[in-house]
């Protein structure tokens, strides 16, 4: 399931599982995913969030309470429905940006698309879906470029049947210079 995930994204999910076990959760929820991301990708997130408070107090802010009954790390903890949706959104975001991998940024985008306390908290700390999308799309992959040109080619191709063999190109030649260069 996680073969397209970057090392960072995998580790974030690993930490999310750990957080779920610490808080005695039966499921890995979106809150745990956020805690995992905060732990794994601190440098990146520090540049995006309004201040550092979230790193220290995220669990409290999310209303998570440490449980006396920690779930053993050997027990398989399933993802909650919301968390599953977040992973689906993450894959969609990667797809949309033309990225072949799913990284921590895509997970964060996924969290911002799932309504709930985690999204509210992230927005409160200055993260907006549109802004993050832009940041994530700053580098356009060769795959995206190929797709854009393929789309253009498809649109353009439909018109080619209008070209009679004898039709000549519009050769625009209006002298550019008014004086010798």
């Amino acid at each position, binding site marked *: 399931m996680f073969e397209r995930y970057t090392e960072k994204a995998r580790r974030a999910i690993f930490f999310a599982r750990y957080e779920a076990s610490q808080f005695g959760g039966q499921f890995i929820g979106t809150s745990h995913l956020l805690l995992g991301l905060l732990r794994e990708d601190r440098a990146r997130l520090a540049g995006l969030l309004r201040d550092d408070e979230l790193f220290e107090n995220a669990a409290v802010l999310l209303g998570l309470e440490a449980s006396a009954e920690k779930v053993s790390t050997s027990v398989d903890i399933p993802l909650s429905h919301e968390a599953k949706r977040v992973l689906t959104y993450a894959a969609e975001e990667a797809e949309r940006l033309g990225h072949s991998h799913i990284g921590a940024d895509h997970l964060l985008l996924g969290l911002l698309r799932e309504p709930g306390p985690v999204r509210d908290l992230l927005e409160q700390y200055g993260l907006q879906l*549109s802004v993050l*999308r832009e940041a994530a*799309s700053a*580098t356009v992959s060769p795959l995206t470029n190929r797709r854009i*040109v393929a789309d253009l080619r498809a649109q*353009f191709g439909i018109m080619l049947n209008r070209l009679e063999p004898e039709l000549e190109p*519009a050769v625009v030649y209006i002298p550019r210079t*008014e004086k010798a*260069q």
Partner: protein
Amino acid sequence: MTVRELAAQIRARTISCVELIQQTLQDLQERDKFCSLISVTGEQALAIARERDEELAAGKDRGPFHGIPIALKDLFYTRGVKTTAGSLVYKDFVPKYDATVVERLHNAGAISIGKTNLHEIAFGITSKNPHYGFVLNPLDPKRLAGGSSGGSAALVAGKFLPMALGTDTGGSIRVPASFCGIAGFKPTYGLVSRHGVLPLAFSLDHVGPLGSCVEDCALALNAMAGGEDYNVPAAADLKGLRVGRFFFGRVAEDVGAAVESALENLSELGATVLNVPTPDFAEMNATARVVQLAETAAIYVNHTDKAQFGDDVWALLEQAHMIMGHEYVNAQRLRTIFRQEFNELWRSVDVLVGPTTPMTAPLLEQNTVTIQGEEENVRMAATRLVRAVNLLGEPALSIPCGKGSDGMPVGLQLIAAPFGEATLVRVGKTLEERLRG
């Protein structure tokens, strides 16, 4: 203030050319928080202003632009002044001569105070320049000024000066004019010299003015193109004028409403508004994109260092290199067909009227806009109604026509047959007067 108003003050000696330039420079220093300029040529401007004052004292009057401060998009060659194109590629480029239009405006008495910021190499419409800063919209600095002539638009919209020079390859004069609520004029292809203007796409590049009103643009055209007086007066009515309401498809509701209201005004002025079938703008846009990508690729073929470019421009250059020879030639053949279709269209209408951009100025961080429920890329949306005109070469004028629900201006685009500049000025001024009430 407009060119005419400033010119009147200079003639009345209520302000000297030197004082006007000093005032403009100080104003820029105090108020320009919009990242409008890449370089300011204050001392040079003051030296010229002194000459202009001496000339006036000696009875030599160069006309309406005598002593008027203007600015030049940093794509125009200026002798001895660096011309960066908003890029790292040209960051140290100092031309040995002035572009022909720069020389002409100078001869007409205009005084350039500097070179304006733009979308990197003029290839884009956001003017979010990664090397020289993001140009902000003076009407709301959280929003795009548009581009690529963003800095020129910001200076006019910010009321620093009445006219600045821009270029338009796929909407780069009209889009920022629309977003900033000013007038922007793209003249007929070839009417204004492109000598000494860094090219982006040879057969689509146009030089034109951005002005505080239609008259400012018309006066600038007189200075830049010469040969004809484009500054025709507004008409009492527009009886006999055939206005084609070009089908503009998906536009934001508030933009559509403002444009409909402008059309009603035209109709009340006596014009006949016709629903004419216009050739498909989407098809022409696709054709224009093929032409532009191929021509830009030709110019930047040797620039292979990704680090020299912003991400968005680099992506476009990569796309540009994928266009094949036969595609470029076939795009030019399609251009022949569109030309013929438009020649036919101009037999039944005098001007085509529609929105300039389907939305008002987006927020800086917006990558996409949602128009009538459909999400699209900001660049593609902003150029959807203007790009095709560059493929044809027809003259087009954008003027403000009311406000959107966000309080930002809505741009109205008027298109005429080749060399129909005077028609656009007449209709533009008449409508402008009426909309101002």
